[in-house]
């Protein structure tokens, strides 16, 4: 039996390019949900995580997004075993935290350009003004009919959505972009 080949939900999508907006499916990354209890806070690895709600912390090849008081999403572009998983391997071994692979559960869409906020504001009631949601901020919110994680990186905003809804969100974004272009 051959090794199973992985399919990508947005493989067939053509990136959207407008003067003030660029949208593309994000390349495959390792997405890991990190959960940790009180004991985990004593672990040195804990200090690699954002310490405020709604914030992310960038480590170059990987970053951590705050999800909830005891939960973070690690986004890592390095090959397995990823830098992020190695960072927390010891704590996980001690059962101070738990790593749950969500790489197949979430799909990322990158939005770049000045109109990215305007586009997302078509769907989300969140305050997306730079003073309220700038680089380093992340949040999980509703956008149109989708639950998305918005991760504001220095280069733009990335939206992560449940994989089965990725194509529908892409279609929604494409339609909204068409409105913006008018």
């Amino acid at each position, binding site marked *: *039996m*051959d*090794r*199973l*080949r*992985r*399919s*990508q939900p947005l493989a067939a999508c053509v990136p959207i390019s407008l003067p003030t907006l660029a949208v593309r499916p994000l390349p495959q990354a390792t997405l890991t*949900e990190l*959960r940790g*209890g009180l004991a985990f806070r004593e672990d040195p690895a804990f200090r690699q995580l954002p310490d405020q709600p709604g914030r992310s912390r960038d480590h170059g090849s990987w970053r951590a997004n705050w999800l909830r008081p*005891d*939960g973070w999403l690690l986004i890592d572009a390095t090959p397995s075993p990823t830098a992020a998983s190695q960072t927390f391997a010891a704590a996980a071994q001690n*059962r101070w935290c*738990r790593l*749950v*692979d*969500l*790489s*197949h*559960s979430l799909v990322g869409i990158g939005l770049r350009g000045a109109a990215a906020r*305007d586009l997302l*504001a*078509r*769907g*989300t*009631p*969140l*305050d*997306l*003004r730079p003073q*309220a949601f700038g680089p380093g901020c992340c949040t999980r919110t509703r956008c*149109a*009919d*989708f639950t998305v994680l918005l991760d504001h990186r220095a280069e733009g905003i990335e939206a992560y959505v*449940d*994989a*089965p*809804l990725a*194509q*529908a*969100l892409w*279609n*929604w974004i494409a*339609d*909204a972009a068409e*409105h913006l272009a*008018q």
Partner: protein
Amino acid sequence: MSEPFRLPGHTGAALAFSFDGMALTGRSGDTLAASLLANGIHLVARSFKYHRPRGILGAAAEDPNSIVGLGSGAHAYSDTATCVELTAGLEAHSLNTWPSLRWDSGAVLGRLSRFLPAGFYYKTFFWPHWRWYEPPIRRAAGLTVVPVGRDPDRYDRAHRHCDLLIVGSGPAGLSAARVAAASGLDVIVAEQNSRFGGSLLWEALAIDGADGRVWLQQTLHELQRYPNVTLLSRTTVTSYLEHNLLLAVEQAPGAGRWRQRLWQLRARQVVLATGAAERPLVFPDNDRPGILLASAVRYYISRHRVAPGRRIVLATNNDDGYRTVRVAQEAGLEVLAVFDSRADAAIESPGVPVHRGAVIVATRGHHRVRAVTARTLDARQTWTLACDTVAMSGGWNPAVQLFSQSGGKVTFAPKAAAFVPGQERQGTIVAGAAAGTGSLLQCLTSGFAAGAKVLAQLGLEAPPARNWRAADLDDHIEALWRIPASLAGAAKQWVDFHNDVTDGDISLAAQENLQSVEHLKRYTTLGMAPDQGKTSNVNGLAILGELTGRSPGEVGTTTFRPPYLPLSFGVIAGRATGALFRPTRPLPTHVQQQQCAAELQEYGAWLRPAYYRQAGEDMAAAIAREIHAVRNAVGLLDYSPLGKLEIAGADALEFLNRIIASDLTTLKVGRARYSLTLDEEGTIIDDGVITRPADDLLVMGTTSNAATRLRAVMDEWHQRECPQLEVWISDVTTQWAVLLLTGPRARAVLERTDLDIDLAPRAFPHMTIRTGTLGGVPTRIARVSFTGEVSFEVSVPAGFAPALWQHFMEGSRDLGLTPVGIEALDVLRLEKGFLHVGGDTDGTTTPDDVGYGAMVRNKKSDFIGRRTLALACANRSAALQLIGLRPVDGGRPLAVGAQLFKAGAPRTSGAGHVTSSAWSPTLAQPLALALLARGRSRVGERLLAWHDGAARPVEVIEPLRHDPAGALLNG
């Protein structure tokens, strides 16, 4: 002659448009109402009840009369002519008239008006039954025809946050914006009109010695330079909701783009500078076309250079109305007389006879006013004047609708004879005429103060106070709510023009002791028209006050509810139409499903195969073929939608055992257990299989679509009841795809892979779980069966599911591998008598009702729902219990939902109903499950089932089961 009533000075380009098929010419920058008046057209509509002729009354959204149809076909919609911007080629037509607007047969209702007083619906149409009258009344009612095709227009919706939202761009709104803009605050100014400026655009006002329009241009120029200021024209704020969330509808400036956009604006502070609307005077036959609000006459003359008529009579009860005389005279129009109801009015009007203490007591004309008769209040003197226009001014109503929607209270100000904003509830600031201030200077000052107050509330420094040189006249008004009956006689005095409510209707309501303004509204329909009583409410409640010996303040107002103006369904839907209306979730193997010719249908949020049709097959044949394959070979189903919650941590088992009804304390690693999940009332809300792949990890299987809900329930219970337990709950439903192999050859399919798990029955028995690798990727395989056959639920990370499906299909055709849809699966489980939660249960079903009483009775520790099930009421004698049914009259399956009843009893007795039903190809007979009162004690009883309009005899039986000993699934 084109535009016979157009005055010199309009700079707009000529635009062709039509009204009721007449080709007309208007000007760019006009409203439809202005262009109609420029063409001498006053008659534009008929009233709702009596079909009386109706003309343009006002200048903006307050107009109750001029609702017209616009466009045609799928583009058709309706709007008020005073709010419609004229565009080239606009097609407008009157509504609800036959055969024509001018000669409308519905006008006969006016002759029957003595038989149709307020409340006649309630008094007349109840015998023998309302439904006899409803169809013709519904046919006669309504204002337009709803288009049946798909709306071809495009709509948009957007959210926006700001520090300050200013509603209205008159002198008060712009003054507030100017103050706030300089501070750097994020400011939005929303203006309903196509141009900013409010009354500065058309009233003759001076600021600092110059024309007010100079100040307007300077201010707009300044605001446009601020990057932190957004000016939204053509934007009507329609709703003021909680937490300073306001909805606004923006009209597109031209054709070819989106038509409307719904803004959801969230503001830290809100300034309402919504202005005021003039009130009509209530006098006999005051509803004829050609009778306009005095301010509207000024508006059309000054803003649009249109003369509403050539010979004008002014009726007023206040000083402000006199401005109309000056504007009309300057435009070269003849003002015949002023009838001022105030006997001691001090104001003069050079060149025009002013009759103090006099009121209009009659008007003549049918499609247009032709003459008025006026009389002094003491009836000593009478005048009759031929005229073509009456300008009436009854005072001003501050536009408090949004303030009231915000939760603010309005109070009656006797001096202004108006309701003004009182106590606010959301920190809202009201400025300008909306606050009851009358003069230009007061508007500018209150706007500035509002801006400064916002800065102070946001901790910013306010600029020093400003002074302007502007008019500060104190408008004097003496309320006149209607003409005394001694002068009016039997003639009708119209209060609500759209709904044809008269002062006589209000009198009747008062006579019948309807003293509350809310009751008055519902009894007479006062204020219930599309204009929501913008011109009629205050007059109506004040008349009620006169009749019941109360002041308007004591009567109070009705509740102002959103929206301020009607919203189109299109803008409510926004872009959420067609494919964007409700996104569905395709399976991980969606492409493969299409390749297998699956009939895809929505099951909950998921798009799943109902069945796979082959050439020459109908649905029943396809389902039978798939069932046969499962019973004799092997079926393949993408089972991914089933929920998968991972409960991990040192206390995972302890925690989950507190949640579900099964006892998990004996669940060993590698084993699986079926369980029910209950709510706090002991009602079944879900079921599924719990597996334990590792010591500190349990995977809770849920029904499709239930995972998110159950995770929320468990998170809440963890945080609220047992936060000390070390538990982490993760939803991995879409991380893991599940391909179900079911049937006697299921094992053989897996044996053709490189799976590193021993598949022998003894090594891998029923109700166990194993982990390993398959095709180089991690896998979890559970031996759980919903079909009664040997089954393997093969889980792999979702991205690998398409390749695995392909591998199974290509590598095991010779084994008879057949893709199986949801419909076949449902019959397979019914053949086993397995429960389908949500189908075989309702909102009251407990475990005992479906035969799982022992599950909860035998569990020693606490779990959700246990306490309720221990109460006596849980053991109710008439509980609906799950049983089987056998149709006595032959082989046709029963209808799902068919009601069960005893012979001779009413078929709506609620004794029970069929919950699942199908033809069983395996057992060669129809199968049915039903919920029946005391069902288990009634086995053998004959009942009737209501099916397709007939009663079918059925026998209550134990649920039939294929392979009752379970030998097949354990194989």
